[in-house]
């Protein structure tokens, strides 16, 4: 399993010269993330946000020690960018890009798995170790160092709940956005396993939404005893209409599969405290810890 990130993690930003890449490189650096290099083919030799830019990761590695990569390149080029990071043995590889064809996601996730590398995303807000380092686009100010781990398929809802957790006086350890696409690198269960062994995490907020059955499988895993720390959850989409995609490609109720009620029921049966509103999750965590 990946180490995820901490204050010492050395990061390369792929797509560092694009507007999103530049903007978030600046914010990540402000947060304390060690961004040692950037990659944009055709921009080698330049600088972006004070970070040296290379044409390839290979050349970046000739000049820097790099642990992980965060990808901001446009969707049509994201598969190659991710394969480049995987080939370079970077771990985890955080794919922020939205709109990647699902066939490309299948390929990149399989390629990473073959090498034992963790893909965060695609279409993820990224991963943050509160107070140390962030690889992602989450607003820093809602996070505060603490002992709650967060796993979320959604981005902004993730920040919402993080801010509520901070507001009630708790804080976060490692927080990961799984990504809103139908096919992503990480499942809730992968993260639960990781949090189980993470000494800095004492409770977990699980944020889900309609579509698929990842939450149901997580509930089953918890029910069967795979995860022993307290969990509070929120599931978005109770007011959603079947057959309509709710923003995320993955957020769609198909037939009887993927409803909020099915997920909420499964989690409750597994002993998870499910909040009706996002704000309730923080209160539940306060109660549980």
């Amino acid at each position, binding site marked *: 399993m990946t180490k995820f990130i901490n204050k010492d993690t050395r990061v390369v930003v792929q797509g560092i010269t694009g507007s999103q890449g530049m903007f978030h490189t600046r914010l990540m650096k402000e947060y304390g993330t060690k961004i040692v290099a950037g990659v944009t083919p055709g921009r080698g030799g330049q600088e972006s946000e004070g970070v040296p830019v290379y044409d390839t990761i290979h050349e970046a590695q000739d000049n820097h020690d790099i642990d992980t990569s965060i990808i901001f390149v446009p969707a049509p080029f994201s598969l190659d960018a991710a394969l480049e990071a995987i080939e370079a043995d970077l771990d985890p590889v955080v794919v922020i890009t939205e709109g990647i064809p699902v066939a490309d996601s299948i390929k990149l996730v399989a390629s990473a798995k073959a090498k034992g590398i963790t893909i965060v995303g695609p279409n993820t807000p990224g991963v943050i170790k509160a107070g140390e380092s962030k690889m992602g686009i989450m607003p820093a100010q809602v996070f505060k160092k603490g002992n709650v781990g967060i796993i979320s398929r959604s981005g*902004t809802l993730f*920040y919402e709940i993080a801010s509520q957790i901070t507001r009630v006086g708790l804080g976060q350890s490692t927080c990961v956005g799984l990504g809103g696409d139908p096919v992503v690198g990480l499942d809730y269960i992968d993260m639960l396993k990781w949090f189980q062994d993470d000494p800095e995490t004492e409770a977990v907020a699980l944020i889900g939404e309609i579509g698929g059955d990842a939450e149901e499988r997580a509930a089953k895993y918890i029910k069967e005893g795979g995860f022993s720390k307290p969990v509070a959850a929120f599931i978005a989409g109770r007011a959603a209409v079947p057959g309509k995609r709710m923003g995320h490609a993955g957020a769609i109720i198909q037939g009887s599969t993927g409803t909020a009620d099915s997920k909420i029921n499964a989690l409750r049966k597994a002993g998870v405290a499910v909040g009706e509103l996002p704000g309730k999750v923080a209160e539940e965590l306060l109660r549980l810890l």
Partner: protein
Amino acid sequence: MKLLEYEAKEYFKQFGIPTPMGNMVTTPEDAAKYVESLGKPVVIKVQLPVGGRGKAGGVKFADTSEEAKEAAKQLLGMTIKDLKVEKLYVEEKVGIVNEIYLGVTIDRNRKQHVVLASSEGGMEIEEVAAKTPEKIVRFYVDPLTGLRSYHANYIASKLGYRGGMMRKFSSFVTKLYTLAVEMDAELTEINPLAEVADGFLAADARLNIDNNALFRHKELQERLLDSYQGELTEREMEARAEDLTYVELDGDIGIIGNGAGLTMATLDSVMIHGGKAANFLDLGGGATPERIGKAVKFVLRDERTKSLFVNVLGGITRCDYTAEGIVAAREELGLRKPIVVRMMGTKEEEGKAILKKNDIDTLDSMEEAAEKAVKLAGGDA
């Protein structure tokens, strides 16, 4: 993006998938002419982006060109699920020995393509899965090697085919898989796949393309809007044309959020406070002031919208941009519908300052904002 049967079959032919002879027509005369040239009995099928056309009477048979003309006339006069029939597919009637099901789709849990095949064609595969799951062959494809000939042989053989028929079915599977991958299909399905005396024919065809992959299929990208017909409401179609992710609902509170999860939660919170959302508009990530303005105008212009609730958590989206967009939109429209804004995150202070300067109040709590939006819409909260 869902293609119509006749469009899907064009791709099937490109990929060498055997299909009965057929032609798309839009008039009874053309239907008659085609049957004349074909010289065979035909089946005539309405071309609509909705299922269940058989039960709705949208499929007729004809042995002669006169019969075809008459059938086409009747079908072209029909309306099925609120959609007017404008296109027909006229296809030779084939001597079906057995109806098979064959599909390729994506399994999101396993993160793989899966080939589904069943000897029980003609009915919905979900129905077969529920009644006789043992009659479905599921083959999960390794993404790094793809579906090789021996995998297709295995599927064909599991379905009970031997000898020449095994090889023919295997080749069919290989071609459908190739089409699925090369066309970026989320789903492609042949139901029924007709087993005839000497081989197989795609009697029907379903092909749904991954919208995210349309940059690889420019010819489809241009037709994307058309393809939403039947799937989306009129206003949803308009929103698509303006590149907005908009879902129409039946309440009176306009909802704009950024991110699917947050927008959904906003919807849920309005529901919990007794209100009803008029829509779901997800700005997505990194919206510009122009885009936000466009979204706000789109929702405010809707007569049903009595109040607007904008809920933005700044990450890749900036609160200052959000504020600029809201202000510009309101000024442009000149409408004074109540707006409740709740924002937090990237450039939060700047955004709040802009709103304050323009007399739009912001609330810090999502729940309070939801409550207020419901109240302003005249709801029962």
